[in-house]
């Protein structure tokens, strides 16, 4: 089931909210758990069993580690078991096919192999489980003794399918006790509507521009068209993913939970370092806490620090997909972060702001080419076209056509991914100031909702891009 679907908006969500708020407070976790399991089973009737078994395994891992707290050696062994088991399951579903394809490609063999589809959300709920058992081992949290509470943490439907990756430490107290109120519910609804509009109205629309560019025959793409396609994809993935995250945060608030934000206007960044502090914040936080810092982080020699960065970013790239171009995408950012840290970071800070923006923008766009291309060769071809190599011309009618017919959409995208959006939000959220502003705010949000529903009704199946991770 998708958040951006009529079934979810008009059936699942209203029913779940009604049952949740009518239930006794001590039953609300159970209601939400049941709803979450139904939500997941709707799209994955087979793999829900895998998720339930993973929940059981991690629940007992946590208890086991907690019970061996006074014997570090045994606790460590339990932790190693938990980490290896989770990583093994994730690696099997995500990377088994890649390994077999590589073996068949490198060696003169053609070994047929069985394939299983990737369970939706496995990357997200496995990382949440890992963060839980590691935090229990570190003593930052006590193991959750109630299976219902733990299960809810892992499979809560607002963040189950595509994040944000919620650390247990951030939600532990909220599982036992959380605040409710009409203002919180209202803010949640506003977040949700904003996210829905981002996904359904903007992301899907700008995505069609990207699709048009990818359908063009090779050799007919100008430099400008290549850039238009790349920028269109950059906006599509931002509004798609940040829209989903906003919906997740909004749904969390509506049910009384507070999640941390996952995006903070990444395209206004002046450096790659800043970009990764603003893009998919929960993922970069996870890798920092559980891979980078345990490896030594930056509290070691320069060479070791570089190695740590390369390793973390290789894993970050691979997390996004079992293709070699994702690994390259991760290493690309790892290399840029190293260069910013050790070579030209200080120099860049002295340059004018707009130069820094252009620097970050160009590098991020090149990064997205590795992300959306079906293969490494296709990625290099597209990058070549963006810089004149293999392009049909500097600009052509196709590029002008795309820009002139979608100019308003591009303007909305630029405003929506920058300070323009925060100004709009400030205006729409100025309800505290007076009755007129409150009414205006309601009108704007109702309008956004109705427009989003209109788009939904006319469109076909439109999953979130990050579902494939």
């Amino acid at each position: 089931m998708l958040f951006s679907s009529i079934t979810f908006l008009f059936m699942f969500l209203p029913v779940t909210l009604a049952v949740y708020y009518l239930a006794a407070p001590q039953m609300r976790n159970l209601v939400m758990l049941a709803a979450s399991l139904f939500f997941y089973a709707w799209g994955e009737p087979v793999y829900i069993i895998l998720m339930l078994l993973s929940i059981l395994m991690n629940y007992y891992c946590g208890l086991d580690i907690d019970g061996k707290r006074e014997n570090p050696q045994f606790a460590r062994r339990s932790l190693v078991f938990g980490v290896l088991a989770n990583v093994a399951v994730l690696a099997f579903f995500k990377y088994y096919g890649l390994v077999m394809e590589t073996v068949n490609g490198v060696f003169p063999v053609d070994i047929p192999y069985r394939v299983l589809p990737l369970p939706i959300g496995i990357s997200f709920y496995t990382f949440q489980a890992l963060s839980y058992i590691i935090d229990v081992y570190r003593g930052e949290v006590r193991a959750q003794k109630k299976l219902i509470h733990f299960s809810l943490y892992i499979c809560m439907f607002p963040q189950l399918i595509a994040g944000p990756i919620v650390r247990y430490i951030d939600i532990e107290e909220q599982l036992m006790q959380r605040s409710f109120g009409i203002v919180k519910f209202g803010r949640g609804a506003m977040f949700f509507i904003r996210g829905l509009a981002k996904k359904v109205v903007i992301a899907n629309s700008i995505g069609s521009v990207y699709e048009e560019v990818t359908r063009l025959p090779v050799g007919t793409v100008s430099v400008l068209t290549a850039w238009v396609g790349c920028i269109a994809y950059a906006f599509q993935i931002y509004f798609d993913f940040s829209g989903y995250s906003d919906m997740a945060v909004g749904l969390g608030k509506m049910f009384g939970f507070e999640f941390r934000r996952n995006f903070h206007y990444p395209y206004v960044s002046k450096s790659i370092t800043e970009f990764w502090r603003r893009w998919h914040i929960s993922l970069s936080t996870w890798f920092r806490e559980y891979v980078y810092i345990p490896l030594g982080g930056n509290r070691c020699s320069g060479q070791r620090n570089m190695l740590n960065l390369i390793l973390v970013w290789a894993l970050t790239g691979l997390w996004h997909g079992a293709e070699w171009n994702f690994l390259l995408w991760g290493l690309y950012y790892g290399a840029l972060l190293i260069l910013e840290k050790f070579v030209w970071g200080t120099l860049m800070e002295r340059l004018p702001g707009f130069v820094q923006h252009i620097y970050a923008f160009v590098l991020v766009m090149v990064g997205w080419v590795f992300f959306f291309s079906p293969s490494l060769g296709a990625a290099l071809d597209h990058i070549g076209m963006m810089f004149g190599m293999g392009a049909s011309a500097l600009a052509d009618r196709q590029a002008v056509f795309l820009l002139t017919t979608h100019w308003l959409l591009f303007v909305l995208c630029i405003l929506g991914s920058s300070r323009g959006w925060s100004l709009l939000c400030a205006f729409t959220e100025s309800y505290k100031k007076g009755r007129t502003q409150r009414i205006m705010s309601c009108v704007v949000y109702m309008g956004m909702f109705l427009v989003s529903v209109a788009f939904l009704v006319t469109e076909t199946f439109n999953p979130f891009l990050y579902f494939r991770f």
Partner: protein
Amino acid sequence: MTERQEAYYGEEYENGYYEEGYEENFGGDYGEYENAPRETPSFSKAGVMKWGAAFLILVYIALLLIYTSGSTKPFEEVAASVETLIDKENLVKQDAQALKRYYGLNSADYEGVLFYSAEFSISAQEVLLIEVKTEQQVQEVRDAVEERLESRKNTFEGYAPEQAQLIKQAQTQVRGKFVFMAVSPEAEAYAAAFTKGL
């Protein structure tokens, strides 16, 4: 003390050495032993359960691989394993136009299509095997197959109930990127051949 005890234990016992030794070795206060921290057992109920859950995950994945997994074998190879069994006296190989007419699907969109249908409309027999190119197409093909089965069931129920029964007993399977459907008295055999061919 008896003479025997005295001879055995000697002076130490009589002098209380034994008791001192006991104290030295075992502690004077039994309560200390009770209060001393126990060693953490290397296994616990939670430890056993986590292994149990991990084992169940392993078993579940094995079952998925056996009963639901797809294959990377070429379409022709998988199709051949089914096609050799097909009753070509009653079923005729159909082309892309027929697929479009009966299922609304474009064969050019897919990796491979094998479509056999009865020559005469009085029979409901059909065999369809499609290998899709993307995961999203799986649902599209499944929906088309279900719609076809439902529509034919309604058609045959009126005048050929035994054909309608065949449709109700249709074998449909989705294995990775392969979608299989068979309406035939031999449907189970065709399904088995398809599974074996993966």
